[in-house]
């Protein structure tokens, strides 16, 4: 097991796959992180040496990920609402924010566009 940013990963797992498990890292960010530390595509978590693990963890630490990122999204919505913008109001009312029609298909908006979103 290899410990990266507070999570244990089995050694046989691909690094790209492990990185993409974090909230806030998708394929594009992952490619950039891997290129930064010269990790090739088929590298497994077990192939990392200790310094590489430390570097990687330090870099991930410096990024806004997981709960930090979720909180920031929260705050952004809160700010919109507090300043009384149209977008903030739409969030507060659980309605689409970007000008979609509201006649039928707004299920996702109802679910997601909340001021208190988790």
């Amino acid at each position, binding site marked *: 097991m290899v410990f990266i940013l507070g999570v244990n990963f089995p050694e046989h797992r691909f690094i790209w796959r492990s990185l993409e498990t974090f909230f806030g890292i998708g394929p594009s960010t992952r*490619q*950039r992180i*891997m*290129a*930064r*530390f*010269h990790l*090739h*595509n*088929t*590298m497994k978590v077990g*192939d990392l040496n200790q310094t590489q693990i430390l570097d990687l963890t330090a870099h991930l630490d410096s990024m806004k990920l997981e709960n930090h990122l979720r909180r920031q999204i929260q705050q952004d919505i809160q700010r919109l609402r507090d300043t009384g913008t149209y977008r903030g109001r739409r969030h507060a009312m659980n309605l689409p924010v970007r000008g979609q029609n509201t006649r039928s298909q707004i299920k996702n908006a109802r679910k997601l566009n909340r001021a208190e979103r988790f």
Partner: protein
Amino acid sequence: MSLSICADCLSRLRISHNPRSSLAIAAVSLTPVSSFHSASVMAKNNSLVKSKKGNRAPESKYRSSQSAKMKKKTRDRPKPPPIGERRAQRHRIVLSNTNALEVPSLENWSKENMTAEENTGRMLGLDGALLDKLRDCKAFKTTQNWSLFRRPATLIRSETIQLGQEIEQVNHSQGKKTVRHLVTGDKASGKSILGLQGMTMAFMNDWLVFNIPEAQEFVNNTSSYAPLKQKDDQAQSEQLYIQPHLTQALLTRALHANESLLKTLKFNHEFPKHLPLKQGTATLKDLVQLGASDHTFAWPAWQALWRELSEPGANSRPRVLIAVDSVDHWMGPSKYRSADFKIIHAHQFTLVRQFLGLLFAKAGSSPPLANGGMLLYSTTGSNTPAFPSFGLLLNQMRARAQGLDPSAPGFPLPAPFSKPDTHVLELMSGLGDVNLVELKGLSVEESKGYMEYFVRSGLLQRPLTEISLAEFRALAGGGVVGELAKLGRRVTV
């Protein structure tokens, strides 16, 4: 309720121009015959018969769930094979097939009959020690048909003889003669096999052989890489990268294939101090072994080895053959990215740069090998990447081979307003000594010898006549050897 006609094919509707027969058909067609019709009258009747006999279970008043009646079957999951098994299966090289007939008059290919021209168009067998060496340096490929015959044998074609003669010339020359070949040709035209034959002949003559069986591995981002630390005076030039695991693999192949030869070679130059080797007694074999055992030592070990082989010294050095297959992959950007997420060009990898520098050596540069040898690089026909600059390079080589001067008007040049690959364009200055070997289809004589071998191994079970041979050659695109082999193994009833 079932329909009285089939909804899929409307089988009751028959259109007939014969009014007399239409009545008879209409009477018959009430009972459709095929069982897949959605509205089978026969099926309907069957259900009636069954209900009359009382075979069906009495229908319950209420609908009950079916799942309670069904037993849960425990599913036996087959155990997956152990780790590495499937990959080993995929890469397995089978060189013999006991079902094939033995070919009684099969001669062995050896140093004595290496360049005998009367062998053109004949199959010659490969024997034990040589086979092990070829296997160790990964000269055989899974795409080749070695597993069809009782024992491995190879077709001697005119290009093979020519290659053998050049190897003999290098052997007899006193200077540092280096022959450079770039082998191209269509898919399945025998490029990799020519590389294998070159390696075989090199082993026969006790040459040192370095083989890169798949150049694509160097560029497809599946192996470790690291930036090379550069000295201050090189700071302006572009960043280079080393590939420790691929270097280790190269050294491993070289170690196993050339072990007996490497054992006899002593150090000529200053002993590399940072490598843990025994001072004084160490041979080049120890150096290669060190690199092969640990990837962190692979690159310095390769550098030290290359210095020993390329710079002349007190002890004489053997001739060297370097074989690289599917070299086109080295002629463009790679799949690797640098730390600032820029695409790394294939020529930024140290080994790639070194091997290409050997082939396309600039005029006036020092000879690459201490005691001469051969560089045998081949392109790929089945997995060709689209690198137009390399196509241009090949066209220039063809034009040169036809005697066209680079300043002549018809000489191929980059298209105006196109953006050719500057790295590849740089190679064009070193085209002078490179010989382009274009493999075409086999000659009639060679194809005859090849197909006869299939007949005598029991694969092709019909006599080979002039007509059938001409047919085979026509079907195989004018005697393309891989296509002939496919026709030879095809079962004909």
